[in-house]
């Protein structure tokens, strides 16, 4: 769990509910007029509901006492008319609010998605995608329902209560004040409820996000879990988290039960007291029977708004937490952005220069040396440079810096003389295409997967890229190039996926090609074929290739040897073989050279 997703609970509560929720304003701006209108309409509906008891009072004290049948028909007509009006107003409220509510949800969801795609890779390294998913789906759903129901009804219920109390005080001030006095302890409890509930709501939503992460991992890691028969083990872990969530949810229910206790008990107590006092008042003639009837009828109309307050209050607090969680992501600043005035390179031969480049993860402990510790390297236009080094020496990191998947923390990377930070990201990533060792395929057709970097490529260009990557197997797929490959390309083998990823990078026709160990999953024959074909591409393109094998190195004009984040030697393969012992150790696997290398490794082990 990233520390960002679990801020101090104290911090959560100090952010005011109103202040937090009002941050939704920009997204809800278009919907707000209709929401306000809906409040007015709902208030009218409540007023109508409150008018009916007044008709009752008039009926009891007038026509019923006098036995006037015509007036009874009039009363019936009024009550019926008011009833129809109330139904129409309620229908109107729904019509007003609900469609805009879905628009707000959609707008927020799109904004979140766009922002997440924009955020740098380092953000995604830290945030488990389950936490992101639970924000994009459950939290936004909650916010929509709050905007459409919760907000409107909360405001209207409060206003209805105030209106009802005023009517009750006018009907009979003694009874009215008794009822109003009952509100004091309820409101007081409401404040402590807010604090208590906010904490639990936050915890529950975070735990739900963690659970989603576990679900995701159990699905993405299914092969490992199956290979080791660890389904039960994963289940146990999942159960622990689900158990925690269950505990939190029950805690939440207890908080709700608390407020419900107050919300039902106190009005009922007031009702009982009012009954005795009211009857006494009527007996002394200080109140009419009709007034009494109207008073209780009004109080009954108010009961539901009172009870539902607990529900809407809880909903509001849930929405507040969801809003906080949404903005935790939206507030995450993108550190890798386009410059204000991007430089454009005319033409550009494709020179790639690392100038005293340093890189470290922002959250790496201070005592740690930089991962890339001052790399200076020039890849000349058209040249192919191989990066060679031990696992963890920084090869992949260095390649990731070229397209600003991460930004350098010192020095600069230049393309054709321009600092890559002065180019627009789109421009930069058009100039440089990458193939990753782990080939990510998206759930779409083979064609779209290969043409990811250049959707407008011609059929001939597509074929050429596939040919170079020796990916003719696509023609044997059920629908050829239009076969949908699963998310993660599950139905393809590792080697097949790698070749598609390679074809993708080639099809993009960049001026600089960056390949991170692109042939690792290929068999020797296929690898040889790919290499032979790749030579043609490399002849016209600048390239940086991470290589583990001599055969891949053979593609390169020069080789740079990386050691602990530094380039310790640059030269041709044979030069380095002759001059660098470390290079021989890293690249050579001939049996005869094994013995001395092992001793070096032992020394290395002893040093650290």
């Amino acid at each position: 769990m990233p520390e960002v997703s679990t801020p101090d609970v104290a911090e959560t509560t100090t952010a005011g509910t109103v202040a937090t929720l009002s941050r939704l304003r920009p997204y809800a701006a278009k919907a707000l007029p209709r929401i306000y209108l809906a409040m007015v309409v709902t208030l009218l509906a409540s007023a109508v509901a409150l008018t009916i008891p007044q008709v009752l009072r008039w009926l009891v004290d007038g026509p019923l006492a006098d036995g006037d049948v015509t007036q009874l028909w009039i009363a019936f007509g009024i009550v019926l008319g008011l009833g129809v009006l109330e139904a129409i107003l309620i229908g109107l409220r729904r019509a007003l609010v609900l469609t805009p509510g879905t628009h707000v949800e959609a707008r927020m969801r799109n904004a979140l998605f766009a922002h997440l795609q924009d955020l740098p890779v380092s953000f995604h390294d830290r945030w488990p995608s389950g936490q992101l998913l639970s924000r994009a789906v459950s939290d936004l759903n909650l916010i929509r329902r709050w905007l459409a129901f919760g907000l409107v009804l909360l405001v209207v219920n409060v206003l209805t209560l105030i209106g009802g109390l005023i009517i009750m005080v006018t009907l009979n001030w003694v009874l009215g004040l008794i009822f109003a006095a009952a509100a004091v302890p309820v409101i007081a409890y409401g404040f402590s409820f807010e604090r208590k509930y906010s904490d639990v709501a936050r915890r529950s939503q975070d735990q739900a996000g963690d659970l989603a992460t576990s679900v995701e991992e159990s699905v993405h890691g299914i092969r490992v879990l199956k290979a080791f028969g660890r389904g039960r083990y994963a289940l146990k872990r999942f159960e622990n988290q689900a158990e925690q969530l269950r505990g939190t949810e029950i805690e939440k229910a207890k908080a709700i039960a608390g407020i419900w206790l107050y919300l039902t008990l106190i009005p009922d107590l007031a009702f009982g007291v009012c009954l005795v006092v009211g009857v006494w008042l009527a007996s002394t003639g200080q109140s009419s029977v009709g007034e009494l009837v109207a008073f209780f009828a009004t109080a009954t109309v108010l009961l539901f708004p009172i009870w539902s307050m607990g529900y809407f209050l809880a909903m509001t607090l849930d929405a507040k937490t969801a809003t906080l969680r949404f903005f935790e992501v939206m507030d995450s600043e993108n550190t890798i952005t386009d410059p204000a005035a991007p430089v454009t390179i005319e033409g550009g031969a494709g020179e790639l220069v690392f100038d005293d480049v340093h890189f470290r993860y922002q959250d790496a402990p201070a005592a740690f040396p930089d991962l890339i510790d001052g790399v200076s390297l020039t890849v000349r236009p058209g040249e192919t440079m191989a990066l060679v080094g031990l696992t963890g020496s920084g090869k992949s990191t260095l390649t990731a810096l070229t397209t600003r998947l991460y930004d350098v923390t010192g020095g600069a990377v230049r393309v054709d003389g321009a600092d890559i930070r002065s180019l627009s990201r789109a421009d930069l990533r058009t100039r440089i295409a990458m193939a990753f060792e782990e080939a990510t395929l998206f759930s779409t057709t083979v064609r779209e997967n290969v043409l990811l970097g250049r959707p407008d490529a011609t059929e001939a260009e597509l074929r050429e890229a596939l040919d170079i990557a020796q990916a003719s197997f696509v023609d044997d797929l059920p629908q050829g190039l239009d076969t949908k490959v699963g998310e993660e390309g599950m139905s393809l083998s590792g080697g097949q996926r790698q070749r598609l990823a390679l074809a993708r990078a080639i099809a993009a026709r960049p001026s600089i090609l960056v390949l991170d160990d692109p042939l690792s999953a290929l068999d020797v024959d296929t690898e040889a074929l790919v290499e032979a074909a790749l030579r043609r591409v490399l002849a016209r393109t600048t390239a940086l290739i991470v290589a583990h094998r001599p055969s891949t190195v053979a593609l390169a004009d020069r080789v740079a040897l990386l050691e602990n984040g530094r380039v310790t030697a640059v030269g041709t393969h044979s030069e380095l073989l002759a001059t660098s012992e470390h290079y021989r150790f890293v690249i050579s696997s001939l049996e005869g050279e094994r013995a001395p290398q092992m001793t070096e490794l032992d020394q290395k082990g002893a040093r650290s």
Partner: protein
Amino acid sequence: MSDSAVPGAADRGVEGVEGEERDDLNKAESAQIRARSLRLLGSLIRPMRVKLALSIFVVVISTISQVAGPSIIAYGIDTGLPALLNADWMPVSLAGLAYLLAGITGAGLIAWFTVLSAQISQAILFDLRRRVFLHTQRLSLEFHESYTSGRIISRQTSDLDAIRELLDSGINQLVQGVLYMVFTAVALFLLDVESGFILLGALVPLAVLTRWFQLRSQRLFRRTRVASARLIVKFVESMTGIRAVKAFRTEKRNEDEFGGLVEGHRETNARVIKVFGIYDPGLVLIGNVAVAVVLLVGGFRVIDGGMEIGVLLAAVLYTRRFFDPMEDMAMFYNGYQSATAALEKISGVLEERPSVPDPERPVDLWAASGAVAFEAVDFGYVEDRPILPPFDLRIPAGQTIALVGSTGAGKSTLAKLISRFYDPSHGRITLDDVDLRDLHPKDLRRAIVMVTQEAYLFSGTVADNIAIGKPEASRDEIIEAARAVGADEFIRGLPNGYETDVNKRGGRVSAGQRQLISFARAFLANPAVLILDEATASLDIPSERLVQDALQTLLADRTAVIIAHRLSTVSIADRVLVMEHGRIIEDGSPAELIGGTGRFAQLHASWRESLV
């Protein structure tokens, strides 16, 4: 999944996840799906029945005390008032006291009920979560490879959310609402039969309206589940593939596509809400008309002297209150429909049977020696498209086999068959003469472990990840395993060593390092049969050399099948199998084959060349 792809779908109806994306199910299919989700619901509720009974008892009492209110008020006005005029305080005090008592009982019990029902619904949710999770883990790889991971994630997240929402507030609303309505109706009948009949009459339009709503919304709710699953699939894959998204500038295209899915989801949602927007005011209308009629009829009777004013008031209050929970009930119904649609999908996943089922009566195999045999085995992922034509193969215990051949020759398929990710189409595969299909999964997984090229790391520490090989392993064992495969050095170099969280604080490890970790896992698991499918592809040469040395000791007393493109592996193999187009075309010791003139001799020669 289209039904045309599934021959014989008509006979079996819509089994498992079939028909999941369709909203045009016919009556029989609809009934079939409904029945299975009800069965699931029943099985979830059954263990809860005692607690459920208690909570219903609690809510009955609390509702009775709530419903008593208007009657007490009627008593207070009709009896208490005249008595008080005669200075008799008794009846009115009684009424007041009764009201207080009813209030306290009602409120206390409602609070208790709220907690009780939360306990019940959380227990049900826990049970369901657990079942879906366990079942997903049990389902064969075949299922996982066709049912995208995004969809299975959405089953376990957004669909479970829909059910949670229903259980959270819905059950409260339903039980309380229904009881409230029933008791209010009963109270009204006891108070005044004629008014009671008026209320009964109002139930007819109510039923008609509800039926209409049900028919209209059911299909729409199914559509929302499908729409939200699509949304989740796109979201998950864009976030997990963020590097490729950025490197190939597909942000804009993704946004458009995602925007389209969001719009589709929004539209189906809005349509559901619209239907509900007619249903809800319809309910209010019926209620209000009923109140007016009760008032009119009652008014005549009061004028005729056939009814007291207090009773009329109570009748009006009861009628009004009867319809009060209707809005909540409608919301419950809304949630119910949405949850049912979710339950339908979940029950579909739960209905899927693993194509690699666990044996009913497993054969015990505590300590396998590791002899593997294929007897007349053939296999194809799809019928009529054989990947491996019929063949026999015996691997004696302790033998190390190198499996070589070009990509697509069937090497990985063979490996997947040994580790029983798939079952053969015909014939049988045995371990120590026991058919793999008869082995308990525990015995099978202890005996046979496969390490693949994709080294997936779970969130947690490095040590946790190694311990997947043997959850009960001690720290020393974990370190021992890491050291044996040459991973110890780099792990110690991480910020917190073995305790480094792989998602955090510089814990990000390279592809090669991940492979070393997954090697350590396998080392720790210590199986009788070890299968390595391209498990060293991302390693640099010195690491691979270290792993090879480790393997030599590790494999001395166990069976191993190694698939590697780098033929250096062959040096530690006792026997080499060369595969082509699914057939084993050469079989012999490395020395024999290298010395010969066959395919392997060629491969070996070209590999030697590639080293220089």
